[in-house]
């Protein structure tokens, strides 16, 4: 069953077009990862789904109902089912509230004051592996990893159906990063969550997502199962991204695709294929706009896909 389906979503801020038509869907219980670098529009996309960023055109269907462009008030009933985790572990926690107050905030907002909020706080802290006495602390007294766990607890307090996670491992040390991904994996299995994870870090995607999409300048350029994208990538940009991550091995062979130049500005988008300006394989045909090519769930937007 499809839980979330986004089709042809477009967003612009004034003259700057950030999303130029994004389409993808997430099934129930599935984890989908969107990978892109800065300026690819992934944060705008996730916020548009959560109703925090504008989206002028397209559809966002959650359980079949269109939630694009709803006002904060009309969006409210959906808030229980869709929760969002932000990039900055500490900065996304209200600084003057204690941890206990923060993680029970969803109950208060949804008017569930009749619950025993203290008990809920302890239950949630236990769920994310934090000691109960953490409830009295303030955000600035937490380490990055702890703050991130508090964020997870808050996001899952109401047992949502869909968790949107914006760079869930940003700002975490390598030794803590794994803990968080393990936690998310466990909770997904326990609660039957669907997740949309957006990140620039390909290395973490491999271990959490079922399917993934690669974004470039506000558009998907490749999409498929995590296996397919990692092992049989077709788009040159995906290839470059995959080869870009330095491996902890001094003897690793570097058959790297180094991209020329810098990502183009959103105000001066290249004509035709938008990756053309940096693509090492660009030909004349790339001056046209490439179509979205769908083959057995492994889709690519390129005239000359790599094999």
């Amino acid at each position, binding site marked *: 069953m499809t839980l979330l389906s986004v089709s042809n979503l477009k967003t612009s801020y004034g003259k700057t077009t950030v999303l130029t038509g994004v389409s993808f869907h997430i099934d129930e219980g599935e984890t989908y990862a969107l990978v892109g670098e800065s300026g690819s529009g992934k944060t705008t996309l996730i916020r548009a789904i959560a109703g925090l960023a504008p989206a002028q055109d397209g559809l966002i269907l959650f359980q079949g109902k269109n939630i694009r462009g709803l006002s904060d008030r009309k*969006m409210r009933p959906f808030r229980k089912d869709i929760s969002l985790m932000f990039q900055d572990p500490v900065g996304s926690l209200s600084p003057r509230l204690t941890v206990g107050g923060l993680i029970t905030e969803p109950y208060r*907002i949804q008017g569930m004051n009749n619950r025993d909020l203290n008990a809920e706080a302890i239950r949630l802290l236990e769920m994310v592996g934090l000691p109960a006495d953490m409830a009295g602390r303030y955000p600035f007294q937490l380490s990055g990893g702890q703050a991130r766990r508090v964020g997870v607890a808050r996001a899952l307090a109401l047992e949502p159906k869909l968790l949107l996670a914006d760079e869930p491992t940003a700002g975490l040390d390598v030794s803590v990063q794994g803990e968080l991904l393990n936690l998310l994996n466990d909770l997904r299995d326990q609660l039957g969550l669907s997740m949309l994870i957006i990140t620039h870090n390909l290395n973490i995607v491999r271990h959490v997502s079922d399917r993934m999409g690669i974004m470039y300048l506000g558009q998907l350029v490749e999409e498929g199962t995590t296996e397919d994208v990692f092992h049989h990538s077709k788009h040159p940009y995906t290839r470059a991204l995959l080869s870009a991550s330095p491996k902890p091995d001094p003897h690793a062979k570097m058959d790297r695709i180094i991209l020329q130049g810098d990502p183009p500005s959103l105000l001066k988008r290249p004509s035709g294929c938008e990756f053309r300006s940096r693509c090492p394989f660009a030909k004349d045909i790339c001056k046209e706009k490439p179509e979205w090519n769908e083959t057995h769930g492994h889709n690519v937007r390129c005239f000359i896909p790599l094999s």
Partner: protein
Amino acid sequence: MSDPITDKETKVKMSDHRQSEFLKIVGGVAKNPLGLIGLIIVGVFVFCALFADWIVPHDPVGMNIKDRLQGPSTTYFLGTDQLGRDTFSRLIMGSQVALKVALPAVFGAMFIGLTLGMIAGYGPRWLDNFLSLIFDTIRSFPTVMFALAVVALVGPSLQTVVFVVMATSIPIYGRVARTQTLALRNSEFILAERSMGASLFRILGIHMMPNIIGVLSVLAAMDIPTVIALEAGLSFLGLGVKPPTPSWGSLLKDGYALIRQTPWLIVAGGLPIIIATLGFTFLGETLRDVVDPRLRKNR
């Protein structure tokens, strides 16, 4: 380079977080010598105002023509005025008037300014423009002119002074609150509240306000002496509190008229204004450093 001692390195062991924030701030102020002086002056000032009726050695409005225009003596610490009223007692009583004007005016202005400023900063663009225009319009009025106009309309009284002071300082608080709100409205914790479906009241009242009020209270502490001086000024012009109620301004006025005969009268009237102003300014400045840790670090 940023301060190498990051939060992570100085991991805070939980022991002091339950300590009241108010006590922590007062403690921080008292550590600074200037802050301590400010705290003492303000403390004495508030004490005088609260217990004026018990402290005063003589009736502040009671005339005693026999003893008029006396110099300082053991009976009259600061001498008497032209009607033989004890200056010292009138000063003490005057502090009550000063506080009666300053506190409601400043806190009223702060509260209204905070509310309007947050609405301007968080609300739609047109509302922001509209409120900003009003703030600027009010601020462009010279305070004294505005006061003269209002007094001419409704007559001099304590309430008029409070109203004038409040109206003219609302925009100052409003502006600051608006800027702070604008800076915070797109921060992740506010977006997180929105993503959970928090109401406007909740976002502004519970999450935005506590982060703004610190800055505003500092502003208020530094504003109180201005207000006291303004009240004195209006009373000096005869537009403030009605005689015979003693106020620092009217004392100054009486002293000014008799400056050639009894100079200590004007000295006695001026000193409390100067000392109170200094006290509140010291307190405000130290408060600013204590409340805003970034400023402290740059010292």
